[in-house]
């Protein structure tokens, strides 16, 4: 009896020791393929009266991409006074080539998302969301918008992507923030 028990427990101990010698920790997991980081928020602005008047502004997270070039980190728009602009909000993963398009995933989960805009008081800009989700009743999303500019001036436009799983009610308060960036708008 004693011998059996000793032998059995030694075998178990040996087996677990052997198993432990696999040094799993030396294989550091590479970045998860297929996962996209939200590094960049962009605005594509098209003048409603002039389809050739197109501007892009981008805000890029410098902790994810250090020293980004101006092409993806100049969050400035120069708009004409008393005009209307059709706007697309772009969410991108600039860590990959080609650029990862996160907007698609947000569009797919539009019932959980809301984009909120807040202009600083000095900025004569009104923003109206022009798209709706498939909730009942349908609620706005904000991936496409209409900007209406007023008199000349300069200010900040805060763009927030609100994540509102099961709590979306059309207002900005519920849920948590996935993106929160500022653009400088010059109305001339």
């Amino acid at each position: 009896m004693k011998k059996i028990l000793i032998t059995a427990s030694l075998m178990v101990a040996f087996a677990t020791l052997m198993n432990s010698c696999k040094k799993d920790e030396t294989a550091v997991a590479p970045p998860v393929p297929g996962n996209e980081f939200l590094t960049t928020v962009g605005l594509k602005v098209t003048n409603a009266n002039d389809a050739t008047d197109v501007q892009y502004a981008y805000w890029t997270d410098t902790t994810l991409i250090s020293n980004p070039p101006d092409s993806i980190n100049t969050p400035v728009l120069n708009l004409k006074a008393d005009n209307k602009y059709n706007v697309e909000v772009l969410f991108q993963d600039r860590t990959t080539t080609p650029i990862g398009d996160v907007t698609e995933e947000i569009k797919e989960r539009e019932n959980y998302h809301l984009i909120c805009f807040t202009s600083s008081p000095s900025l004569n800009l009104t923003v109206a969301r022009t798209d709706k989700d498939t909730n009942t009743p349908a609620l706005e999303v904000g991936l496409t918008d209409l900007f209406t500019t007023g008199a000349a001036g300069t200010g900040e436009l805060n763009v927030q992507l609100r994540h509102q799983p099961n709590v979306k009610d059309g207002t900005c308060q519920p849920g948590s923030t996935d993106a929160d960036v500022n653009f400088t708008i010059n109305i001339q």
Partner: protein
Amino acid sequence: MKQKTWLVIKILLLMVTSHTSGQVCNFHIIGNILNNNQKPVVHASITLSNGQSSITDTNGYYDIDSVCKGTYTITCAADSVIFLQRTIYINNNTTLNFTYHHMEGDLKEVVINANKIHDLTTLNLIELDKKQLFQSAGKTLGESLKNIPGLNSIQTGPGISKPVIHGLHSNRVLILNNGIRQEGQQWGSEHAPEIDPFIAGKMTIIEGAASLRYGSDAIAGVILLDPPTLVNDRLKGEANLVGASNSRMGAISGLLNGAGYNKWEGIQWRVQGTLKRAGNFKTATYYLGNSGIDEHHYSATIGYHKANFGMFAYYSSYQSKMGIFDGSHVGNLDDLYAAFARPKPITPSYFSYKINRSYQQVIHDLLKLNSYYRFKNNSRAELTFARQSDLRNEYDVDLPYSDDPAVLNAPQVSFKIKTHTVDLIYHTPEKKHFSGSYGISGITQGNVFKGIRYLIPNFRNYGSGIFGIEKYNRDKWTFEAGLRYDYRWLRVYRRNDNSLTVYTQTHTYNNLTGSAGATFQITPDLSVSANTGSAWRAPSVSELYIKGIHLSAASYEIGDSTLQSERSINNNISFKYTGQKLLVQLNLYDNEINNYIYAKPSLTGITLVSGTYPVFQYTQANVRLRGLDAEINYQLLAPLAIISKTAIVRGYNKTIHDYLIFMPADKFDNTLKYQIPNRSKFKQNFITLQYVYTARQTRVPPNSDYAAPPAAYGLLNYSMSTQLPLHKNLLDISFSVDNLTNVAYRDYLNRFRYYADDLGISFILRTKLTF
């Protein structure tokens, strides 16, 4: 009576030595029998009332193995003549040395003095027995210890709580689960210990620097959870059933144990299992969405022992899924401030058992093999090997941005740590009032981190330690002193984000710690103990390398890979008076920690795509924690007792001349306990009314927290309990009401106090059938 040589026995001061806790059926009664000429008495028999027995060897030594806790009549006989019968209560390893004289005449009065001594006796030590544990059955480990003065719990919502000893927690409190260091991701304040409290037959809290015996990390103290000792009966068992109205929590836990007979003599076994389920908890006025718990655990033990040898195998598997309160999801600091400004969470919730994102999922498995051997001279060696693996997956409220279903279903953060430990301990026999324990231990860990957002790197660590403790026990004095040396080697593996190559960084730490203390039994009622001990802790991998957002706290934490070991000197003095009607315990402590590691607000922000976060940088400072724990138990009238407990702790950062953050507020706990006389079959009937007052924490450092500490609050708790013997079985019933007046309050140590109130009223029914 035939021809008699009556023996008058004088029993000397009895010495009780303790071995490692957590070993199965580990109580030994050992000692020697000498005659008045100090010559050994050979072949004398020592028998306990349950039949366990031993016979003295040629040196007069005897040993009774595997004694379970309880009251026994001990019977000594020589030459078929009973010369001693005494009742003795055993709840520890006990050394009973007998001296006797051959003499004609009557059996003279025998006096037994028994001291109860652990490996570290002069530290403040609190034990919770089965009865006390039953009163908190169904609660988390952290919650179930809160009634002890000096202990608190740090919480992340209702389901996740960690024990706090004298203001410190996580990496600074060591938990030994069945004698094995619990190793998971214990650095995180929102990582609860992966333990089923139902496993414990006894919990012991050692307050103070206990590194000497238990190794690094025991800066504030040690919590030992020991399963009940294995039984010698053929079959015994226990079934617990707990239900609580708040969260509609239900828990069922059972155990069966027994011993082999005939050709299976010497085999002992136990199986145990627990299922626990809770839904959304409720504050005084609203539900906390997604705060449910789903937990299950099972364990099995088998042991075999002979006269001087025993070996045991233990396996346990714990699994838990814990919802994270959905009102606590904040993307950034603005969200946090907005949540704090609201009187209640913006989205109304309702009751549900469903656990949605975000949640934590934990699987912890433990295998323990141990054996002991007792040598002829009554010394004893124990060898313990353990392997534990801990998997922790955390799922954020957001799904990853991906179309790949494999990525969508993967946790954002996943840690897997495997730990192997081996310990060899040698207990010397008591000789000329001296006894000692010596040990060596080794540990190795491998940690694998996977995740979408980076938190901590992979690592491997090796550690070893060697210690010796000697104890001198004579008359009214006990002295103990010990030394320990530890070495730790840590290598982290990281991947360069640009080149994708793996590189390593290696750290080594070594530390000498020691402890010395004394206990003086001034009178049989009054004793005083004092202890000075040192402890150490190597920086955890998170403190060295963390870089990222702490989601529920909306802070950005940055580690520092140059951190040194933390070292503490802990002075402790305690008084204990045990009178007929009055029991007083007072414990004063001063814990000076050099190179204390903490996250210091750097007063700058970092702007990420999700917003701006305050930056906290890990750094070191010299700090001091001082405090007192007091307990007075006064029997006002025959059936009515008043129990008053006070706990005060002050944490101060000596380097920057400021307070320490997240120190427990002053707590005053007063209980009236009324015993109702036995009615028909109902015995041990108690009614208690408890009022716990927690003051507002006013001593906080500036710029370290987002919201002022919450107001003081008082909670009224009620309970009634009884015991009902049913044939040979025993049914324990307890009914209690927590937060009787349904007070809405927030606690400073609950990290979710930014977002919601703490728990409202709860009716709890606990039953336990012992058969």
